[in-house]
């Protein structure tokens, strides 16, 4: 069931199960990882309110074969203390609902290029705050591992 305000109007209209697990082999803490689709490719992404951008894992970017010429090329972005060179794309991200409405949203997405494998160490796909999450309503239920989400009418 979706979450509602006291007057019955919906706060969010959907939820998806999340995994609470490390996002990389070197992570010592768990992350909230939810199923999403990037350009119709179904994969996982972790919720990172410290990241301004959605970041697409290099391996996923390779799988969906995105077109670099349509991107803002060669932007440097600081990930975990490392300056990573990459391109900014406009891609569709779908939040998948176990119950409720799937939301497909077009957003800016950072895609690393010329990956140094040691630096990236299997870095996963990330849903960042500024260009994505802050335009949505979201909440978690840590007892049931549910991630609730919905649109904010005044942003999207």
């Amino acid at each position, binding site marked *: 069931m979706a979450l509602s305000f006291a007057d019955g109007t919906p706060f969010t209209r959907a939820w998806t199960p*999340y995994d609470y697990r490390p996002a990389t082999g070197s992570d010592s803490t768990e992350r909230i990882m939810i199923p999403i689709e990037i350009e119709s490719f179904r994969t996982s992404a972790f919720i990172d309110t410290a990241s301004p951008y959605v970041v697409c894992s290099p391996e996923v970017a390779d799988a969906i074969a995105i077109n670099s010429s349509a991107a803002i090329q060669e932007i440097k972005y600081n990930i975990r203390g490392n300056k990573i060179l990459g391109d900014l794309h406009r891609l*569709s991200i779908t939040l998948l609902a*176990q119950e409720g409405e799937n939301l*497909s949203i077009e957003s800016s997405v950072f895609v690393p290029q010329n990956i140094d494998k040691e630096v990236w160490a299997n870095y996963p796909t990330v849903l960042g705050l500024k260009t994505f999450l802050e335009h949505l309503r979201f909440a978690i239920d840590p007892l049931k591992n549910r991630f609730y989400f919905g649109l904010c009418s005044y942003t999207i």
Partner: protein
Amino acid sequence: MYQTFNLIPIQSNLKNTNKNRLDPISNNFLSNNNLSYDKLLFSIYWNNYFDQAVYQETVGNIKLFLKNANKIDWINNFLSNNSLSYEQSFHPTYNDSTDSSYFDKIVYLENLTKSGNIGLFVKEINKIDWTKHPAKHFIYVIRLALEVEAVFAAQKLSLLGAKLYPQNLELEKFAFILKNPVLISKNQISNSDLEANSKWIINNRQKYKGQWVALKNGLLLEASKSLKTLTLKFSEHKNIYFTKVH
């Protein structure tokens, strides 16, 4: 390398003359500096004291032009006569046809990002009258803003730039990519397999640590160290969930 020299005192003397009719002051200057008229004129050309038309009229010899191009220390001449540092002269936004005060503002913004003063950088962006700046200034500062994660400033500037320069395809692309997220669709399609996949991960995480797994309806289709291996095997990957397990 030729010495750097100040061209201003002899500029007016040279302006209306040619190599056969040099005035005594210019002649002395040339001999004292071991320079030929052509070399000097080339230097002047590069320093923008004469435009190309004047140069061609007085010399008119492209071979000599190119030969001298390799001999003259025009970089130092140019820098000293324009009060620029080497770094500034090669700044991507420098353009000698743009008022230098606009260029100075871009260098100032760049220095703020280098010193990590991002709050002031964003404030200064908002203070600038951008209508006076060329499109390349917009592109340069948007890139600076993106690199210091001033996403809102980059977004705002790209929209303004695209509005002021509607013919500029680069700014149009920046504005399109950086604009706020847009809802493409919402639908009620249920994904009943999501919870089943999640349960599979909880139960099998340790066993498949470090591997990509392909799951469907809570069942493992395949596991591999490489995502590419899985996507090649399941080229029709609709509703298959690919995730790396740790």
